C-alpha cells in the first residue's frame, strides 16, 4: 500500500539522518594544541571575564566595568607591546550555572587567551576544574577563598586578594596577644565568605577558641536587620566582637552596639572598612576604636587625599570611568588588579602563549600597586599562587584609619 511505502521511506531517511547526526557528533573534543597561541594576534590579546551585572550581587558589577575602563586607557596609550587588549565581559548574575555557560562561551567561542577576575567563590568553584582541564589561565579571581592558592593541583588558577582565612587569623593573633582572657562574640554572614573568616579566626585562636568564644550568631544576606543578633551577643557578655558583615549590616551592627551601650573591642572585617559607606553612616563617634586589617588604601579615607597613587586613580576615574562612583572601594580594587594584569601581560613580552602567561603570573616580584598600602607588595612564585598575602592592622581614630604594628605576612609565617 502506498501509505506504508511512504512511511517506510520516511523511516529510512530518518534513520540515515540520525546516524549522520550522531556520527557528526563524534570526535568533537576540542584539541587545545599546546603550541598554538590562542586569543592572540599581531594586534590584539583577548581577555575574558564574568561579573554580576544583574541580580542580587550586582553591586560588584562595577568591578567588571572599571576593569574595562582601565584596559581602554592601556589601549589608548598604545596597548601592550603593540597589542590592544580586547576585553570581553559577560553577565553571570552570580549564578554558577550561568558562569559555566558564559565561561565556556569565552573559552570555546570567543577563544580568549586568559580568563581574568571572574567574580565570586561559587561561580569560580563551578569553573575551577574546567579551566584546569582546558589549561586556560584563570587569573586573579575576585574571591577571598583559600582554595585558589593550590599551584600543585590547579596550576592554571590564581587568586588575588588576601584570603579571608588569613585575615581571620590576623585578628585572632591580635586577640590572643592583647586580650588573653577575652570573651568573644561573633556575627557572621551564613555563606562561604562568612564561614571562611570564621574558620580562619577559630583556627587562629587554636585551643583557646572553645574557651574564648561565648556566642556565634549568623544572618542571611537577605535578612533586613541584625539587631536581634547584636542584642544576643551583648547579652552573652562578650567583650570582644568579631564583626564579619558586609557594609549594609556593618552599619547596623556598629550603630546598634553603640545604641544599646555595648562597648566591646570591635574587630571589623576588611570588607566593610569604607569610611563613606560604613563608618560615616554608622556615626564616626560610634566607629571610634574599630580595628580592621587593611591591604589597600581606603579611597574615602582623608589621609590619602594628596597621595600620588590615589590622585592617579582619581584622574583615571574622571577620564575613563566618569559614571563610576568615587566613593566605591570596588573601583579602587578594580584599578589595582587591572594594573596587575597589564603588568603580567607586559612581562610576557612577545610570547603570549597560555603557558607563558601562567609562568609570568607566577613570577611577580615585589610589585607595588598605586592603591596598595605602602609596604605591601605582590609576590608570586611557582609554588605561591597568592599574590597579596600581607595585611596590616589599623585602628579608627574617629577621622581615619591609623595603621599600627608590623605588616603581617601569611606566607612568611608558614
Amino acid at each position, binding site marked *: 500500500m502506498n501509505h506504508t511505502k511512504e512511511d517506510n521511506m520516511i523511516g529510512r531517511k530518518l534513520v540515515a539522518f540520525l546516524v549522520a547526526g550522531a556520527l557528526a557528533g563524534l570526535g568533537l573534543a576540542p584539541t587545545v594544541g599546546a603550541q598554538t597561541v590562542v586569543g592572540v594576534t599581531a594586534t590584539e590579546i583577548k581577555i575574558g571575564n564574568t561579573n554580576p551585572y*544583574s541580580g*542580587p550581587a*550586582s*553591586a560588584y*558589577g*562595577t568591578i567588571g566595568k572599571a576593569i574595562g575602563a582601565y584596559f581602554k586607557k592601556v589601549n589608548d596609550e598604545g596597548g601592550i607591546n603593540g597589542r590592544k587588549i580586547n576585553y570581553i565581559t559577560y553577565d553571570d548574575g552570580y549564578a554558577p550555572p550561568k558562569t559555566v555557560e558564559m565561561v565556556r562561551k569565552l573559552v570555546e567561542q570567543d577563544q580568549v587567551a586568559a580568563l581574568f577576575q571572574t567574580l565570586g567563590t561559587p561561580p569560580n568553584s563551578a569553573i575551577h576544574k574546567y579551566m584546569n582541564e582546558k589549561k586556560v589561565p584563570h587569573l586573579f579571581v575576585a574571591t577571598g577563598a583559600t582554595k585558589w592558592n593550590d599551584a600543585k593541583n590547579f596550576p592554571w588558577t590564581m587568586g588575588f586578594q588576601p584570603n579571608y582565612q588569613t585575615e581571620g587569623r590576623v585578628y585572632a593573633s591580635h586577640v590572643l596577644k592583647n586580650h588573653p582572657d577575652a570573651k568573644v562574640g561573633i556575627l557572621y554572614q*551564613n555563606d562561604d565568605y562568612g564561614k571562611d573568616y570564621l574558620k580562619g579566626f577559630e583556627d587562629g585562636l587554636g585551643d583557646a577558641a572553645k574557651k574564648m568564644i561565648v556566642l*556565634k*550568631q*549568623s*544572618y*542571611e*544576606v*537577605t*535578612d*533586613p*536587620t541584625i*539587631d*536581634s*543578633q547584636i*542584642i*544576643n551577643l551583648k*547579652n552573652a557578655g562578650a567583650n570582644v566582637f568579631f564583626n564579619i558583615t558586609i*557594609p*549594609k549590616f556593618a*552599619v*547596623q551592627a556598629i550603630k*546598634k552596639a553603640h*545604641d*544599646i*551601650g555595648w562597648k566591646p573591642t570591635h574587630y571589623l572585617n576588611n570588607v566593610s572598612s569604607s569610611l563613606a*559607606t560604613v563608618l*560615616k*553612616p554608622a*556615626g564616626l563617634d560610634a566607629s571610634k576604636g574599630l580595628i580592621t586589617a587593611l591591604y589597600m588604601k581606603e579611597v574615602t579615607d582623608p589621609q590619602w587625599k594628596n597621595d600620588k597613587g590615589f590622585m592617579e586613580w582619581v584622574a583615571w576615574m574622571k577620564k575613563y570611568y566618569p*559614571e*563610576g*562612583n568615587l*566613593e*566605591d572601594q*570596588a573601583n579602587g580594587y578594580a584599578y589595582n588588579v587591572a594594573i596587575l594584569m597589564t603588568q603580567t601581560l607586559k612581562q610576557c613580552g612577545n610570547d603570549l602563549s597560555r603557558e607563558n602567561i601562567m609562568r609570568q603570573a607566577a613570577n611577580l616580584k615585589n610589585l607595588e600597586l598605586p592603591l596598595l598600602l605602602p609596604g605591601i607588595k605582590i609576590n608570586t612564585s611557582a609554588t605561591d599562587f597568592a599574590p597579596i598575602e600581607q595585611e596590616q592592622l589599623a585602628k579608627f581614630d574617629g577621622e581615619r584609619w591609623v595603621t599600627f604594628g608590623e605588616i603581617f605576612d601569611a606566607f612568611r609565617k608558614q
Partner: protein
Amino acid sequence: MDIFVQQVMSGLATGGIYASLALALVMIYQATDVVNFAQGEMAMFATYLAWSMLNAGMPYWGAFLATLAVAFVGGVVIQRVIIRPVENKPILTIVIVTLGLLVIFNSVAGWVWTYLQKPFPSPFPREPFRLGTVVFGAHDLGEIAVTLVMLVLLFLFFRFTPLGLAMRAAAQNPVSSRLAGIRVGWMLALGWGLAATFGAVAGLMVAPILTLDPNMMGGIQIYAFAAATLGGFTSPVGAVVGGFLVGIVENLVGTYVSFIGTELKLTVALAMIIVVLLVKPSGLFGRAHVRRV
C-alpha cells in the same frame, strides 16, 4: 527578662518594616485583585527620588511629600499604561508583567544611581530612648508609629469613604460596579497610585536603617509577603499584625531555640507560617474565599 523585652522590641521594629510594605501589597490586592511583585522595587525607586531631592537641598518634609505625590502619579501611570493592556488576561500574565517591572526598576536604579549604598536621613532623633535597661531606637519607634498611622488611614478610607467603597466594589465585581456607575478603570489606577504611595512611605522609613541601594527592598518584600500571607491578603490589620508577628517570632526563635540557632531561623519562621495557613487557609484575619458554583 530584659533580653526577652529587648528582643520583642527589636522584633516589633523589624516587623514594622515588613508591615509597612505588606500594607502596600494588601492595598493593591484589595483594590485590583493582583499581587504586585514590583511593589518593593517601586518603593526603592521612589526612595531614590527622595534621595535626589534631598541631595539637591530640599528640606526633609518637602522631599517626603513631593516623593509621595510623585509615587502616587507614578502608580496611576503604571496602571494606565503598563498594566491596562493585560488587565483582563489570566492572572499569571499580569504577574509576569509585574516581574518585568521589578527587574526594570532594579536595573534602572543601579544604572542611574550606581549600586553603592547611600546613607539616608531619618526624620526622627538619633539618640535612643532608655527605659531601665531596655533601649528603644527613636527611629524604630517613629517607624512603628508611621505604620500604625498608615493602617488607620487605610482602614478609614476603605470603610468610610465612598471612594474607598467604590474601589473595593470595582475590584471584587467589576461588571456590577460598572453597571452601578463606577468608573472601574480609574478605580484600579487609583488603587495602584495609593499602593505606590504607601510603598514610598515604607521605603523612606526603611532606608535610614538599611541604607539605600537598589537591592534594599528585595529581602523586605519577601518578608512582607510572609507577613501578608500570615495576616491575610484581604486584611490591612492582618498585614500589620502579620508583620509584627513575623518580626517577633523570628527574633525569639533565633534567641531561645538554641539547637536551631540563627542559621535556620528563616526556615523556622516560614514553617510556622505554613502551619498557621493549614489551620486558617486565608491567613489570620483574611476572609475565606467563598464562591458560588
